[in-house]
Each structure stands twice: as C-alpha cells, then as structure tokens.
C-alpha cells in the first residue's frame, strides 16, 4: 500500500528541478533587489541641484557633502558623485572654498517621513539661504540564506502596504490572488515580468472584523478559489465571467485536502479555530481551540499537529491527544512534502510578541516529539499567515516587515541541501 499523500506533486517537475528552480529564483530576486536599490535617487539629484542653482546662479561654488542619515556609505558616495555631475550640468563650477563665490553645504538628513536633503548656501556675508527636498526611504531587499543539511528556500512573491491575509498562486499561467480584509485582488504576470492587476472583488461583511483578522484562500479544481474569513465565506464563480459571491457563513474552514481532508470551525469574532472538527481525526471530533494545524503522513494514518490557543502544541492521531514538548514555537504550523528526510516536514513559526521578527524552522516527527531539521529562516516580522499550498510541497507565508511595515508574501519549500 502506498503511503497517503497530501496532494500529488506536479508530474512534470522533478525534485532536482524543483530545487534548482528555487535556488535560481532566489538568486534572481537578490540581483533584482540589488539593482533596484542603486537606482533609487534617479531624478532627485537633478531637482536638488536645480534648486541650489536657482539661488547661486551660474557661479563658481565650493561643495561640502555631509551625511546625517542612515544612508550607507556606498549610497552616499554614489549620491555625492551624481550631485557633482549635476552641478556641472547646471552651469555651476566646482572650485576650492577660497575661490568660490558661494559655498554650498549639502546635508543628507532624514526624518520620520523619509530622507531630507538640505543645502545651506552662503554667498559672501549674506544670511545663508537654506533649501531642501524630501525623498522616500528605500524599500526592503531580499536576503540570501545559508544552506545547511536541510534548508528552507524562501521565495519572495509579493509586497504591499495593505494588509494581506493570505495569497494564492497559480504557476501556469502565472496568476496571483491576494486576500485582503475588504477585497480579493487578482494579478496576472505580463511577459515583461511585471504583475498587472486584473480584477478585484469586494468582500461584504456585516460585523466589524475582529482584531488580528485572519483569512484563507483555497484554490479549487472546479472553480478558481474559495475564501474564508471570520463569519464570511466567498466563492468564485465556476463558469462564465469571473465573479465572487460572499455571504455570512459559519461554515468550517478546510485545513487539509485529499487524503487528509479535515475542516474546522473558526470563531466569527476571534482569531482562532474553536476546536470543533469535521469530519474529525479518527474518533476525535473536538480538540483544544487552536490557531493552526497541519498533517504529517504516517504509514497508516495521519498525525495532526495543532498549535493550540493555550500555548501548547498538541498531536492528535485519532485516538490520543498529546501535548508535545516544544521550545519557542509560535502559533503557525504548516506541513510540506519533500524528497528529504522522512518526506514530510512541519514548518513552524518561532515565538514572538509581534516586536521581533518571526522565523520559520522545519521539523520532523520521527516518533512523537519534533526534531529540528533546518536552520530558522527570518521572515522579517511577525508571520500572520502560514498555509500549505495545494501542491503539498510548498507553503505560503505572509509576514509584516518590522523594518518597512509592509506585508510580504513568501513561498517556502524544503531544500535537501548538499
């Protein structure tokens, strides 16, 4: 008898190809992040120089540039070089201070809004004239991770200011679905690689959303997706023009599919599952209220892991409900199937009170107790969602960056390493 599977992997993608794809994607993303950071100041130098030139006129000026901001030295050097070039282009002649008709002191400063470039222009004994421009602060970059025996490959999918509850990804043709508190937005990828918004569908709800709002997008075979929010369920149309219908509903949310089909009721006014399961794990129809759950395949059954709202991790096998010893686990778990180790890994977030970045680490359950099998991957902020994707071999994580405040979506996969 074949071991039960969560969901079949796409037949055209082998394990080695999968790992290569992940590594390649990470490399490309790193390169993209580097190149975008270098071009942040485009146009700003010209505007700033124009303001200075309007004060000095075409004159011989001395220039001093200071950095009072969090800009790194390489950025300051690049900005200084570009400013000098713009000065010449604006008809200003850079000379030593004792030969200058005007001295210009440029300070790269910053405030809560962003960067502030300030020029103090001194012409003879006149009162100095101050001019300034403001610029947005730069965005985040994707950091590469070192690999160990087993590693979590992290692919950055999406980033936005608005809150993300969950994301759905269709690889071919590339489409991205973003579940937000008030709408579901669909994007498709252009041949240029850019994402373009296709459609958005509002989510109607009568009650105010609970704080720490959660939601889940589930891709379907007979229609595009279902979306679950506390007390609300939405379904995409199955035929014709795509539409989404949202209704007040206390229907249970799906936790797993295929051989691991399990649904659980979610509290409509809180941020957790009530603990009532349908159809249940074996003979167990209720467990302690929990935040997340994931199955680990065994030879003849599935071991379900629950991150309970009482702060403990429970394993449920259909007969017994055991609290397992864990150190520093958070409230999100998701399982992934891989070609590494025992073939099934549990991804679990680290503990956090929202002020420190969460990490995700992979664990295996050789017996009852979890054993860490990977280094922790930093997701930059608290993880607000972690769900297994339909393929079963990857998980989607959403975090809120502590550095930028933006919501970031990642795809996580297990890489077997060297």
């Amino acid at each position, binding site marked *: 008898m074949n071991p039960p599977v969560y969901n079949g992997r796409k037949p055209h993608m082998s394990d080695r190809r999968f790992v290569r794809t992940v590594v390649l994607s990470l490399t490309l993303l790193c390169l993209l992040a580097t190149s975008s950071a270098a071009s942040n100041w485009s146009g700003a130098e010209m505007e700033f120089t124009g303001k200075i030139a309007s004060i000095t006129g075409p004159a011989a000026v001395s220039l001093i540039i200071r950095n009072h901001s969090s800009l790194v030295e390489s950025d300051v050097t690049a900005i200084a070089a570009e400013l000098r070039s713009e000065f010449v282009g604006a008809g200003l002649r850079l000379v030593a201070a004792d030969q200058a008709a005007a001295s210009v002191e440029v300070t790269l400063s910053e405030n*809560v809004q962003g*960067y502030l470039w300030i020029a103090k222009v001194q012409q003879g004994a006149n009162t100095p004239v101050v001019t300034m421009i403001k610029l947005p602060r730069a965005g985040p970059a994707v950091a590469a991770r070192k690999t160990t025996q087993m590693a979590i490959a992290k692919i950055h999918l999406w980033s936005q200011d608005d809150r993300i509850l969950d994301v759905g990804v269709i690889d071919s043709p590339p489409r991205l679905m973003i579940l937000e508190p008030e709408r579901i937005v669909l994007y498709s990828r252009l041949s240029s690689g850019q994402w373009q918004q296709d459609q958005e569908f509002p989510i109607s709800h009568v009650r105010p959303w609970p704080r720490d709002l959660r939601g889940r997008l589930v891709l379907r075979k007979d229609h595009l997706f279902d979306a679950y929010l506390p007390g609300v369920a939405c379904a995409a149309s199955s035929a014709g023009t795509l539409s989404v219908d949202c209704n007040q509903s206390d229907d249970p949310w799906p936790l797993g599919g295929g051989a691991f089909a399990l649904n659980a009721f979610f509290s409509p006014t809180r*941020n957790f599952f009530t603990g009532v399961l349908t159809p249940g794990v074996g003979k167990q129809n209720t467990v302690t209220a929990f935040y997340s759950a994931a199955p680990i395949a065994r030879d003849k059954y599935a071991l379900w892991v629950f991150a309970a709202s009482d*702060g403990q991790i429970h394993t449920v096998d259909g007969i017994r409900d055991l609290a397992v010893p864990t150190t520093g686990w958070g409230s*999100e778990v998701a399982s992934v199937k891989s070609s590494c180790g025992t073939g099934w890994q549990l991804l679990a977030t680290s503990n956090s009170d929202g002020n420190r970045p969460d990490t995700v680490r992979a664990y295996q359950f050789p017996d009852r107790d979890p054993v860490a099998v990977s280094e922790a991957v930093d997701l930059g902020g608290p993880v607000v969602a972690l769900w297994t994707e339909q393929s079963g071999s990857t998980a989607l994580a959403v975090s809120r960056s502590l550095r930028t405040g933006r919501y970031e979506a990642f795809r996580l996969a297990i890489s077997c390493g060297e």
Partner: protein
Amino acid sequence: MKPFGWQLVAASSLSLALAHAEMRPQYGGTAHMLLGSAPNSLDPVSPQADPFTAGKLLHLIYDTLVSINDSDNIQPELAVSWEVDKDRKHWRFRLRPGVKFEDGSPLTADLVATSLRQVNTWSVFPEGDSIEIDLQQADDLLPAELSLTKNAIVKRNESAPSGTGPFRVGKWESGKRLVLTANEEYWGGRPFLNSVEIEFGSSYRDQETALELGRADLVEIATEQARRLETGARHVSESGPLELLALVFAHEAQSTNESKLRQALTLCIDRISIRDVLLGGQGDLAAGILPNWITGYEFLFATEMDVRKAQEARGEVSQAPVWMLGYNSRDPISKVVAERIALNARDVGLRVQLASGANADVQLVRIRLESMNPGIALKTAAVRLGLPEPKLEGVSMQQVYEAEAALLQGQKIIPLFHVPVVYGVGGAVKGWKARLDGSWPLTDVWLGH
C-alpha cells in the same frame, strides 16, 4: 548630531524569558496601569494640566476623523476619505459607515459637525455621509489638526460625553481611578483586552515598585531612570525624543545688549554634561523646538557650547541684570538642571538665581509635543511656550523650517534637550509596540499566559 537610529525607533526592549511559546494575540484579561497625573475631565475639550498624557488616554475612548502614523502620514479613522478643492479652503471628509457611539446611537454627519464646531471657528456642516469644512484661509495642515485630541468626535449626552473608541468608560472616579472596558462593537475590531484599569496619582517610585511586584502591567518611568531600569529584567519602552526641555524668557529680546546676554547664556550651557549626568544619558541635545527626527533640519540651528564666545558676548555688555530662573519645584530633575544652568552662567559672568513661582524672568519648562506633524507640533508647542503664533502657510518642510527659524530668532526660547517619554511594561504584556508619538497601543496588546 548623530543620525537617527531607525533600528532603535522609539523603543528599547529587553528579551524576556518565556515559559510558554508566544502565540497569536489572545483575547481576555485586564491590564493594570499606573499614571502620575489624572485627566481633569474625560471630555476632550476640557483644558488639561498634562495634555500629552490626557490625550493618549482619551484616544482610547474617542476617535478622531484621522490620525497620524509613525511616518507622519495621515491615516483614516472615522473619515475614510477626504478631498480639498483647488483653493485649499473647502474640505470634504466622508465618514466611515456603521460606526456607533458608546450609547449605541450611530455616528452621523450632524453629530460630527456639532462636535467639531464646539472647539473650532471653522464653518462645519453635514452633507449626506460627509462633513464639509470651510476655512477663511487655505490650510494644508487641516487633516493633521483634526488628529489632535481636542478634535475627537464626541456626542454629548445629558449624563456624560460618549465616544466611538476601542474602549468604553466602565468606571470613573475623578482623579483616582478609571476602568475601561472593551468596545465589542468597535469598528476597528474589539481590543484583545477585556478591560484596562488605570490608577492615577502614583509617584514614579510607587509605579516602579508596582511593576516590579507584578501589581501593574504598565507604568511611567522617570526619564533619568530609563537606563538603570534597562539593565534589569524589565521591558522599557520609549517614545521618540519628543519632550522638550527649554529655557523660556518672559519676553523676546528687546535690545542688542539683551540679545548678547541671551546669546552668552545659550553658549555657556554644558548640555552634554547635564544630559549624561543629570538626565541619565537620555535624550538629544536640542537646538530647535522640534527634534531632528521629526524635521531632519534641526542641525541647522547651532547648539555647541563655546565658553570663550559666551564670555566675549557677555563682555560686550557692561551691566548684566540678575535673571530669576524659575522651575517646577515638584520635579526634582528640573531643579538640578536649573541649578547646573545657574552654575554654567556664573562661569561666564552672568547672574542667574533660582526662583519659584510666576515672578521669574526665565522659566525652565518641559513640554511634550502633541503631534508628529512638524507644522502642528510647532504650532501647538508655540502656544504652550508662549511664543508668537508661527506663520505657516503650507506643509512643506522648508516652510516649517522658516517658521521655526523665525521663532528662534526672537531669542525668547533657548532649547536644551529632547528626551523620550518612557514606560515600563510588565512581562505579561504582549504586542506592545512603542510608537514614536508615545501613544499607548492598548488596543493591540494582549496578556500572555
């Protein structure tokens, strides 16, 4: 001046030993808070002895149309959108639907207009699901002004004012104790906590003891004690350095001689020693009314101590009057800072004597900035410092700089320090995210296991 440390933004926290895995936010429980000062009233229009603390507290009960986030961006609150016409005088704010007051009645444009008219001279009138505000003069700062506590939306009943905020008033013993309970119907989602109990009138020492003994979850910490407490197993939370310590003269400099003497006083104060020794190393040396982290331009105003220049300026004036320096005698830090300034002044031939009461020539004041918006912060600070109203016609940083430079030029004020507001946070409190503006994120905190 050191660059602002974004990694240290507003908060320093020590890791806590965790017996349990920390999970998603949990609902329930009561947080206990101790404060030194009590609000005079729970009505936002009432004048407050400590407007900063009262403002933070009242924002738990009332909402404003908009708020300002840590990046000085205007955020929707009771207004979901707004627009202004070309001449920047006619504003329209569309209200959030489905919001209810504490008494269960719905938020309406009529009630919002009535609330705003009570504290402003603007022409405010309801228009469908919106309110419209007509101004005499163009004012781009209006949205930021609407985020101030005085502009909180209040429905005034016969019994008590009613708000739409995340908490409701459970019990109010004026000046002593306030119990807030979670608003189950809050449009932004019910707070995680069931209730917050706040006791007023505790000294810093009592507050610290209560935190240590686990009798309080949140307390105020004296600025100069912050570093000491950070070395213990406590969680210390700081705002951005938004409290201004400054010398404020009774009037602007009236003559060249007076101007030179004030310049001498400005140059002789050993700010670094005062900060490092008396203020426990907390805060930044101030040269402007607004701190550099809010404006980015404060460094343009010189702050360096220069005894030689101070002596030269003093030497150019034959007769120097005795300045009476007033301070808050109930604040021990003000006393020692004033004493140190008097010593520094004596070293350059200035005569400064400490005084209490209102007969002082110059006063050592401490004010906390009430807004993260530079324009509004400057305006409200000027009022509290008794400075002329700054001429601000727009919101650009250039305009704010020019307005602040004009205020400083009058030499009525000598800025000294910007220090953070510090809170002690108990180990059971989770999700406390210190904000730059020093507000209390009680809506988002929960109590751990």
